[in-house]
């Protein structure tokens, strides 16, 4: 199933003119405040009526200004995961989980409570009240509640923004499972590059009420042109398989034939992982460096160089492991004689990749 959104809307002095399609998997809406994320989510949820446009999940029209269609929020069959969880305080965790099921049409293929509880690891919490849960537990229950409403689309509005780093790390894997196991598209609002890199199947970058860029995550995130749009820590996402775990605390990965050494990743051998490599953590060298402490040296050729008015430039490198970005100074670009087509080496310090940057 897929979601298609076309809408124009004015709010205060802002003008939104937005069109994008979200295929299956996780589509991340990425952009600063005022870029239109909230407008889109509210329009899809039915909390805001756009001036014009059309919103449809597959061939089910939620809103169409031409035909005057505007389904009420409760008829839209959405699973909405809010930033603050919004669990019902007077119901137990189990009652919260089953809330949406009362209202789901009988024809809907219901997600099984046991499966969802198992997937989210919330079995021991079922009889508790939301007030007795931690922030991370609340958010897991909120995910389960959305899932059990048998939605045709899941909306997640910055679901991790209210959590600290440790809780984020606790929840992210559940979203990865949700992405891989739920067969419904997920529209996910975020302004965290790490979340985008780990979760996104495709990315829609919003700027000033317009779609500035959209496409598969690996393409958009490694496109240096999105850096000024607020993708602050621009970086590449490499897909790699776990080859083995060394007993000095490192894991060896295989990215398109290139070995990568990372701090121990909590995945099994053979598993596919996605590694986000921030552009600022990558150095460049024309010659293969020797006697260097960095473990990861990836040969490639320069695909493009972008620079703005500042002293920095972002160099994209095509390598066997995938596209890698490096943030260097314009002076270095000149000194090294970098230009498209020139071969060079990307150097990635092992310890610069934190566990948050590695996902399934």
């Amino acid at each position, binding site marked *: 199933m897929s979601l298609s959104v076309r809408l124009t809307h004015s709010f205060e002095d802002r003008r939104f003119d937005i069109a994008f399609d979200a295929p299956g998997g996780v589509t991340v809406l990425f952009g600063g405040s005022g870029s239109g994320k909230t407008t889109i989510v509210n329009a899809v*949820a039915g909390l805001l009526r756009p001036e014009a446009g059309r919103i449809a999940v597959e061939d089910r029209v939620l809103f169409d200004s031409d035909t005057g269609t505007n389904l009420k929020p409760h008829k839209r069959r959405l699973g909405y995961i*809010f930033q*603050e969880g919004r669990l019902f305080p*007077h119901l137990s965790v189990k009652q919260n989980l089953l809330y949406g099921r009362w209202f789901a049409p009988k024809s809907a293929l219901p997600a099984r409570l046991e499966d969802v509880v198992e997937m989210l690891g919330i079995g021991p919490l079922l009889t508790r009240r939301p007030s007795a849960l931690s922030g991370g537990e609340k958010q897991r229950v909120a995910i389960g509640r959305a899932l059990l409403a048998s939605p045709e689309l899941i909306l997640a509005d910055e679901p991790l923004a209210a959590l600290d780093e440790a809780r984020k790390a606790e929840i992210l894997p559940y979203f990865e499972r949700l992405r891989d196991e739920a067969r419904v598209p997920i529209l996910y609002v975020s302004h965290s590059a790490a979340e985008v890199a780990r979760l996104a199947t495709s990315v829609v970058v919003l700027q000033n009420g317009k779609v500035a860029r959209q496409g598969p995550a690996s393409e958009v995130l490694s496109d240096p042109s999105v850096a000024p749009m607020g993708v602050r820590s621009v970086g590449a996402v490499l897909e790699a398989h776990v080859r083995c775990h060394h007993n000095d605390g490192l894991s060896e990965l295989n990215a398109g034939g290139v070995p990568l050494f990372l701090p121990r990743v909590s995945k099994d051998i053979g598993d596919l992982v996605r590694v986000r490599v921030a552009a600022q953590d990558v150095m460049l060298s024309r010659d293969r460096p020797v006697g260097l402490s960095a473990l990861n040296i990836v040969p490639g050729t320069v695909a493009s160089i972008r620079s703005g008015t500042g002293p920095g430039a972002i160099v994209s490198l095509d390598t066997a492991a995938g596209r890698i970005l490096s943030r260097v100074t314009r002076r270095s670009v000149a000194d090294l004689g970098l230009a498209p087509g020139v071969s060079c080496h990307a150097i990635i310090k092992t310890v610069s990749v934190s566990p948050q940057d590695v996902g399934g």
Partner: protein
Amino acid sequence: MMEWLSPEEQQAVLLSLRVAFWATIVSLPFGVFTAYALARWRFPGKQIVNGLVHLPLILPPVVTGYLLLITFGRRAPIGAALHEIGITFAFRWTGAALAAAIVAFPLMVRAMRLSIEAVDPKLEQAAGALGASRIWVFLTVTLPLILPGVLTGAILAFAKAMGEFGATITFVSNIPGQTQTLPSAIYAFLQVPGGESSALRLVGISVAIAMLALLASELLARRLARRISG
């Protein structure tokens, strides 16, 4: 159990309990609806509705009673129409209940409105997003969360209805066994020589009922609040 009261005193106490009970029960749904509308809806004339609801709180009770008399009296248009279909307020205990309900209504609505305003609309939004229509959102989320406030409003209204005097005596007079509520009876006893001891007993009962009502509301509200927040 009330043999220490004279038949007349007993009658007044029982009548007052009946009047206050029905005044509270019948106005309860209207109270919840009005409180919800005032707390959540935006509609033209909202301030006027708000003012009308609160009017009995600030009007002299005798004015409220007189307005009731010229609206629901047997010769008034509405009163006559209702009399046709078998509902009579004038000089009946039902009239006392109506007067009590109207005077107690602002107290009931205020308590309920406060508790509705304390419910995070985002929770109601979440319920809607999960597929609940507005009425189901109200029944499964809003109502359980505002129960303590509803209860407080009801008990305040009950206590106020027990004590209503001015509007009642103006609207339905002071007929023993028919419209002579507890306060009317106290007033009547004080008008006759040697009535003080009867009046004093009724005053004691008044105080006891009011205290019990307040204690009960406090206890129930606390227990409900605990249940709701886990």
